[in-house]
């Protein structure tokens, strides 16, 4: 630090939060990140956490087994509420996944350097969230063993899937999203897998990382094609992430159900997905940087930026809520007006008010710099926001179905033990996969961090 820079605690310096703490070299960033995978012993914390998560995954398996044995009736669904927790959870998990792709792809296109230390585990989060999400459309069907009917294969009946149905659009959208996210993540991992191969401490590590890295040798020619492919993937993943949650929102907006049939859903869902996704990235980033000592790489700048993105998307979601009400009343359609008032006065109105509290009111605290820079507050805020986003999907899916067109067909939804156990089970699956990821693969993109070091030292040279 030269004499012209302001002293450590001044407000001017806070605005200059570095993307990478000063003093790192190519070797030091590589050492720090690779050590978590290659040399750090499995601590009691990791073992305890993994064991608990694994136990919860067993609960998931038991819930799924009982579901297949008995049928979808073990859940709380009925007629008229044909979709309950399963679809709420599906939309919630898919939404969470979107932040990873946004960070990887959209922030890359916008040349935002602060994406570098968070994009790897955010993308991993996306893949695990999509895995958890994908369980639900499969198991919520009455006959999941025939779910392959949704794929276009030449069947003995001669029929094909019905492509006008949003559920088929979902099949293609979510499959594409999972595949492209996996490809994007793997391409990003290639150079880091090579790094781990070259620094492997045991033969097993060498063989596994060697196989996975496909013989990557960091050749400049390869890098050139790699950069080209990476840029194209980022450019493709951007419309993809926007389209996937749009297609998920079509499950609702294409139906005629009052409260579902509204054109605000595609942008509202996409903004909500980014909102909950960034909240989950924070939920993961904050413990990760603390436990593995990665504060130099995931700095206050990252946390604050993520908080700002959450605030912005939260405001868009709030706008979405407002438009729903406005359009219901402006249309004068008695069913839509009724549904809007039901959210405020009906039997499930307490969920709606909890939703407003979690998603609109509480995040307004993020306007304050003190809150954005308080790590504990951010962590709690991220949990509150994800709770709110779950409630939002519950309000949309369930409340609209309880009271639609014909009063004689109105009903009530009451979740059963198996509804909860399946949901909690997927949380356990997600946590277990994150635990495995953090120890098996580099949680931060090493080669991209080296680029940051180069960028930083270039910047220093310019200042001198």
């Amino acid at each position, binding site marked *: 630090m030269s004499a012209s820079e302001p002293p450590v605690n001044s407000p001017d310096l806070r605005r200059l939060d570095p993307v990478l703490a000063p003093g790192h*070299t*190519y*070797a030091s960033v*590589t050492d720090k990140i690779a050590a978590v995978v290659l040399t750090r012993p499995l601590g009691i914390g990791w073992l305890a956490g993994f064991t608990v998560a694994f136990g919860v995954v067993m609960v998931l398996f038991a819930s799924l087994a009982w579901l297949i044995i008995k049928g979808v009736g073990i859940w709380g669904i009925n007629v008229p509420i044909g979709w309950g927790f399963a679809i709420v959870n599906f939309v919630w998990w898919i939404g969470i996944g979107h932040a990873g792709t946004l960070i990887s792809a959209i922030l890359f296109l916008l040349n935002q350097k602060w994406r570098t230390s968070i994009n790897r585990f955010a993308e991993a989060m996306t893949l695990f969230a999509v895995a958890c999400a994908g369980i639900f459309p499969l198991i919520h069907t009455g006959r999941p063993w025939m779910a392959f009917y949704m794929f276009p294969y030449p069947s003995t009946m*001669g*029929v*094909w*899937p*019905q*492509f*006008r149905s*949003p559920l088929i*659009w979902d099949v*293609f*959208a979510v*499959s*594409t999203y999972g*595949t*492209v996210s996996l*490809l*994007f993540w*793997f*391409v990003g991992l290639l*150079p880091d897998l*090579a*790094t781990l*191969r*070259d*620094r492997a401490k045991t033969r097993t590590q060498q063989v596994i990382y*060697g*196989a996975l890295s*496909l*013989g*990557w*040798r*960091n*050749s*400049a*020619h*390869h*890098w*050139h*094609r*790699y*950069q*080209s*492919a990476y840029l*194209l*993937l980022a450019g*493709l*993943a951007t*419309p*993809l992430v926007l*389209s996937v949650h749009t*297609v998920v929102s079509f499950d609702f907006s294409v139906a005629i159900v009052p409260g579902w049939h509204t054109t605000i859903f595609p942008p509202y869902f996409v903004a909500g997905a980014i909102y909950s996704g960034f909240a989950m990235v924070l939920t993961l980033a904050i413990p990760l940087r603390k436990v593995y000592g990665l504060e130099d790489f995931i700095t206050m700048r990252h946390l604050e930026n993520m908080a700002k993105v959450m605030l912005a998307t939260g405001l868009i979601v709030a706008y979405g809520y407002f438009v729903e009400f406005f359009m219901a009343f402006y249309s004068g359609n008695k069913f839509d007006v009724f549904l809007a008032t039901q959210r405020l006065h009906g039997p499930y109105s307490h969920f709606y008010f909890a939703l407003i509290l979690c998603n609109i009111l509480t995040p307004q605290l993020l306007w304050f710099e003190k809150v954005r820079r308080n790590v504990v507050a951010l962590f709690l805020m991220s949990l509150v926001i994800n709770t709110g986003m779950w409630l939002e999907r519950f309000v949309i899916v369930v409340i609209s179905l309880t009271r639609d067109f014909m009063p004689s067909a109105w009903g009530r939804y009451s979740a059963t033990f198996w509804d909860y156990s399946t949901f909690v089970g997927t949380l356990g699956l997600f946590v277990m996969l994150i635990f495995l990821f953090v120890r098996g693969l580099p949680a931060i993109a090493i*080669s*991209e961090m*080296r*680029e940051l070091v*180069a960028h930083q030292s270039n910047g220093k040279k310019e200042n001198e």
Partner: protein
Amino acid sequence: MEQRSQLYGVMGEFDTPEQIMAAARKTHEAGYKRVTAYTPFPIEGLAEAIGFKWTAVPLLTMIGGLGGGLTGFAMQYWMMAVSYPLNIGGRPLNSWPAFIPVTFELTILGAASFAVFGMLALNKLPEPYHPVFNVDRFAHASTDKFFLCIEARDPKFNLAETARFLRGLNAQHVSEVKDE
């Protein structure tokens, strides 16, 4: 079978991106054509400096995307309007607005798969063995050092002269790369 160790090339090690860029330019100016560089992260302009011209990855991506999209739409049209047309709520058989989401997704899937697998194929990966891995120092290529390798196949290659040339570019270590 004869196990003769052949010479693949000569490799010099550098410390910073600026050094290897300068070295690369000088090497190209000196007339060496078969040059490869190895860096722990991509360096802008380095591949061009050692003679890389053009990559087919964007073209492959576009082909994949168009192929995916056309396949997607043709599939839906054929399945819904030709192969087994059904009256679904009175909707038109060629419900092209309803066919858009799947067409779009398959376009992206086609483009992304062609981009990734095309890139891997053009890079000739997976390639588990390569002579440069025989140099012990080369492990640093994936951490913090930059390598410039002039291959023995190059018409101007002469072991002693090329090694001297690399030392003249201030390479830290100059090693022979053997193909074993």
